[in-house]
């Protein structure tokens, strides 16, 4: 795949490195010649010095033959403009990083009207990630689909768990919650279970669910999920804002400590339900006064990496709570990994990973309509997200009458705001977002899930 990356900052470099390693032909573009030079020396890519909104530069960088353009310069407007020009000059998929909250409200509009393939807001993505992490019990890991509305969790089946010795088809009824088991990992083996498959101790099961029904599920199978009720956030940046919004929306008590009075004012206006405290978050007395020992989670999201690490470590010493530290710049993850920190979040890497995931899906599927692709269970299972378009041969037919290939499971259907855990009677409709889980690889289109006899129709 020919990929052009505009902007050679941290995210741009990570993208260039990863995408190049995955066998794409990468061209980078930046106005800063030194950075371009550095990247070109390090990786097997091509570099151009120039602005991404210059038509000539884009043409020279080969936009006409490019399959994808990723704009990750510091400026939102430049990124959008660059994508717009690229879209008109060539015919490539365009991805823009847009971080201004004012634009990100209009994401859907922008994607539709400017013909973008993807808009990524790094702060929002990071906030989502933190939110998910705070809610998750520590034994569980998750992948998200359909812009965060669908999740696949990996859950270990422990001794004495209600999941032991139970057939997959009985789980929903027995536990009274709407989830679906899509993959079972038993030892080295990975299976996509049918209804009669019986779970055993020490299995790892992958279940599909929305954020809400998964919570019920965890409680019912007795995984210690100690749902958080209150969070203290230090630092009032964009991530804090998005995070606080998510948290307050799910009824969690939020207090934000911020040093700048003006920012406090603004936050107060935007987040009426949160408690905004004007003060220095590194002041131990203030933290104690605001009840650090009474909250059950703590997020250090200031602009300084060192401060975040220390704050998290300090919070740990005070009381046993879940902590999150945000790290922007520091590259010494080996050292950080050895510290007693619960969760460390790297917003820039989240951005890069998000884009790479998309690029990978696109690269796997030129000419198809795979939206995103995740590899789960150690890369042996692919989970693909499709959007059902008109004249797809699956529309309107109940799943049990579809002639699906073996090892394929329709794990989830998302229709508008509604999430359907598909049973035999459900059918896909035009406009649905569908998650398909399979041990096969190379699915390019939703029609590929059908067996031979039906595919011709």
């Amino acid at each position, binding site marked *: 795949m*020919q990929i052009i990356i505009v902007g050679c900052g941290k995210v741009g470099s990570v993208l260039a490195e990863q995408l190049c390693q995955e066998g794409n032909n990468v061209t980078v573009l930046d106005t800063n010649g030194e950075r371009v030079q550095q990247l070109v020396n390090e990786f097997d890519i091509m570099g151009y010095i120039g602005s991404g909104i210059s038509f000539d530069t884009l043409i020279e960088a080969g936009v006409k033959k490019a399959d994808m353009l990723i704009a990750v310069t510091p400026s939102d407007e430049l990124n959008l403009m660059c994508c717009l020009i690229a879209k008109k000059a060539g015919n490539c998929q365009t991805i823009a990083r847009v971080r201004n909250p004012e634009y990100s409200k209009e994401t859907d509009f922008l994607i539709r009207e400017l013909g973008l393939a993807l808009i990524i807001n790094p702060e929002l993505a990071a906030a989502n990630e933190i939110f998910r992490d705070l809610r998750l019990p520590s034994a569980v*890991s998750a992948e998200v689909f359909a812009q965060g509305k669908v999740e696949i969790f990996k859950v270990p089946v422990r001794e004495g768990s209600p999941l032991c010795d139970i057939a997959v088809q009985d789980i929903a009824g027995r536990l009274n919650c709407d989830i679906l088991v899509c993959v079972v990992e038993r030892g080295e083996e990975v299976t996509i279970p049918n209804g009669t498959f019986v779970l055993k101790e020490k299995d790892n099961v992958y279940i599909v669910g929305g954020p809400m029904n998964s919570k019920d599920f965890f409680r019912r199978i007795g995984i210690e999920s100690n749902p958080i009720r209150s969070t203290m956030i230090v630092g009032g940046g964009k991530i804090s804002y998005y995070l606080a919004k998510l948290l307050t929306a799910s009824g969690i008590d939020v207090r934000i400590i911020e040093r700048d009075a003006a920012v406090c004012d603004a936050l107060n206006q935007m987040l009426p339900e949160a408690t905004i405290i004007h003060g220095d978050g590194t002041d131990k007395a203030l933290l104690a006064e605001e009840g650090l020992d009474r909250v059950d989670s703590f997020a250090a999201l200031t602009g300084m990496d060192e401060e975040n690490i220390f704050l998290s470590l300090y919070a740990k010493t005070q009381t046993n709570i879940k902590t999150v530290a945000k790290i922007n710049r520091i*590259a010494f993850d*080996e050292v950080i990994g*050895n510290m007693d920190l619960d969760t460390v979040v790297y917003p820039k*890497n*989240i951005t890069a990973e998000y884009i*790479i995931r998309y690029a990978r899906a696109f690269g796997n599927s030129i000419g198809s309509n795979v939206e995103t692709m995740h590899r789960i269970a150690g890369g042996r299972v692919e989970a693909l997200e499709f959007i059902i378009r008109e004249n797809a041969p699956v529309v309107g037919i109940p799943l049990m009458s579809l002639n699906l290939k073996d090892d394929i499971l329709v794990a989830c259907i998302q229709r508008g705001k509604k999430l359907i855990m598909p049973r035999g009677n459900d059918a896909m409709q035009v406009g649905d977002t569908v998650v398909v889980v399979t041990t096969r690889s190379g699915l390019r289109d939703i029609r590929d899930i059908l067996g031979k006899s039906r595919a011709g129709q």
Partner: protein
Amino acid sequence: MNFQIVRYMLGYVCYFEAGFLMLPFLVGLIYREFHAGVSFLVIAALCVLLGLLFTAKQPRDKRMYTKEGLVTVALCWIVLSILGALPFWISREIPKYVDALFETVSGFTTTGSSILTDVEAMSHACLFWRSFTHWVGGMGVLVFILAILPNKGGAFMNLMKAESPGPSVSKLVPRLRDTALYLYGIYMGMTAIELVLLLLGGMPLFDALALTMGTAGTGGFAVKNSGVADYTVYQQAVITVFMILFGVNFNTYFLLVKKKPKQALMSEEVLTYLGIIAISVLVITFNVMPMFPNAFQAFHHTAFQVGSIITTTGFSTTDFNLWPPLAKTILMILVFVGACAGSTGGGIKVSRIVIMIKGIRKEIKMLLHPRSVDKVRMDGRPVEHEVVRSVNVYLAIYILLFVVSLLIVTLDEKDLVTNFTSVAVTLNNIGPGLEVVGPTGNFSSFSALSKLVLCFDMLAGRLELFPLLMLFVPSAWTRSTARPLSGKSIKGIVKKVGGRGNHVQ
């Protein structure tokens, strides 16, 4: 310094040398020259052995920084020459090893200076090998290896940078390997066209092959004692045109292949190069007119000689040593100018000269308007200050090396013109000089020391000075004290794109 990766690359070079040596072996078989053929086969076997030895152990650390790139390239070329010279020596066709080495270095560096007094006495296998070294050396051995080996990382760009001529080397397409493939593709295509045109003109196959390879690499070894003088006017004209074509920056051809003729023809360097050729041909033609029966003859021979010298090929159709001083002086100036960057030619390179002259103009303007802000421009784009500086440093080293070499060569007590031109034509990879080393002469009368110095000059000229100088910098040879934990630790950092590190202890 990461010696392991250097050793490993040297191993590959040995393998490729073995492959190259099989070609003259085959030629020997065809012409039933078993004695010469066997010596090539023996050395090929030796190369394979060395290759096995060098590549036996995989390097733990595959990183290649600029210094490793430079040292690898320099050592590769030295190893290639040392091994490549052996067949001449063990087949007794060139009795002294120093002479064999000189001949081989001259071949690989596409110089074309020879120590042979009687070329026609050589076996076909040896003559083929001489010419073949030109062809491989022209585009570069490591570029060839890069084109064939599976994709290597970006760090290997350092190899190509060190081997390709020109002040700034850039890739044509994002992948290094694809770039190398494009370059060799264009190179082979043009070589094939010239070969066919010469064959159509009635030249014997062996001569056509040898001369084509000599032209393509801008080398200059011929297979006749008289050089190229005895061939027909048509054949000489074909060679003239192709010499000039091979002196053009290969980027131009890439753009033509990509159907961007406008961009291709806009190149300032190529236009300057063609301009210099046109003016030189015009002036010299008038100057040498009295020596030839008619104006066409004068033009034909002038064009051949000018093309041969400016592209640093070094063929000759006539003894220009006998030409009037003005003509000889112009030819000597062309010796220093050289071909375009990114071509197979040598010399200082037209682009460096253009940048230098524009730099001078800029400095003078700065004297007139001390506060003016100005940048040297090339093809309408500003040239980075770094590039301008490196061009100046290049010239400084060039002159220094020239002076030192001249001083050592002078110990042989030959006349100044001979010494001066012999250093000039080896450092610029031309071939024949004036007086003793003129088109009808050769380099055999120099002492062993002088020959070694001239070998060094040829390599330095071909590799653009810096790689060879690197070998003399002591700190380049110090082993890095701290070793990486393992190759995996580097990979680990790469993997850390993984986003959130859920580090729970």
